[in-house]
């Protein structure tokens, strides 16, 4: 798990929308952005493309893009609606307050960025992946 920076940290982020809400991920964590119909290679052990909106309990969106996450078991895809036109940019991170860290289980947010007075959660896709694996009973370890 990438520990949230206690002070404001800077890192390139990819801003996207899923289920009608804006989210961000660290650009470095993404191997590739693919189309909505992305499927892992036939020889991959994890042959799943995950609907991010459904996993977060949000309403279904267009799912026109897939964020491909490199894992030791092979690439794993997260279907999202669209990639923001702001695209990859350097944002000022805000750390997760400790009280929120106590309240959010599992904690998949590693920080927040502000854009036009709007707070955007920065997700840790690896933690999300692990949570999905727990939830669906798949163990990738």
């Amino acid at each position, binding site marked *: 798990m990438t520990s949230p920076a206690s002070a404001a940290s800077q890192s390139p982020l990819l801003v996207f929308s899923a289920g009608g809400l804006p989210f961000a991920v660290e650009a470095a964590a993404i191997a590739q952005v693919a189309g909505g119909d992305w499927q892992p290679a036939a020889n991959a052990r994890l042959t799943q493309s995950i609907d991010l909106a459904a996993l*977060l309990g949000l309403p279904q969106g267009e799912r026109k893009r897939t964020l491909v996450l490199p894992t030791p078991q092979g690439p794993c895809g997260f279907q999202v609606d669209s990639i923001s036109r702001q695209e990859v940019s350097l944002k000022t991170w805000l750390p997760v307050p400790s009280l*929120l860290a106590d*309240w959010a289980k599992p904690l*998949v947010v590693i920080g927040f960025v502000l854009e036009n007075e709007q*707070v955007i959660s920065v997700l840790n896709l690896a933690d999300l992946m692990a949570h999905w694996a727990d939830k669906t009973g798949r163990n990738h370890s």
Partner: protein
Amino acid sequence: METRQPQASPPTDAASVSLFLFRDGQEAYALGSAAVVEVITGSTVTPVPFTPDWMEGVISVRGKVLPVLDLFRYFQLPGDAPTQRSRLLLLAVEGNLFALWSDKILGVEDIAEAKFEVPMDTLTPLLRECMLAQLRHDDGLIFYLDLPKLLEKTRQQVLKK
């Protein structure tokens, strides 16, 4: 934007406490006025994944991100959810910053401890546990909240899940 400085000076009367009184929906609450940092007009609350329903989301105030706690949902109060919420109370409790919704700020009053009553049995156990006392006031019954206890309870609830 309404701003309040934390009350540092001790109350003039040894047997009275300075309380911040506000209303949220049908209920009125009291807090130790020292805990209230600031009152702001409402702003957009962004939901955070995998949080309880009473954790409404986060707001940003001058470069800081604060979680917003919904008392109505937390205490599972009866009746319709409040619809007139227009103020956010920014609270600092044991170094934690968070926000509560309010319909109306009733003001800050020095209230004699003699007026404190034991919470009624008819209240929900969770609400009674998070209360220091109940008060009779012109605006009706007021729940005097024990904020540290409230935060402790929230943490326990999340862990229990």
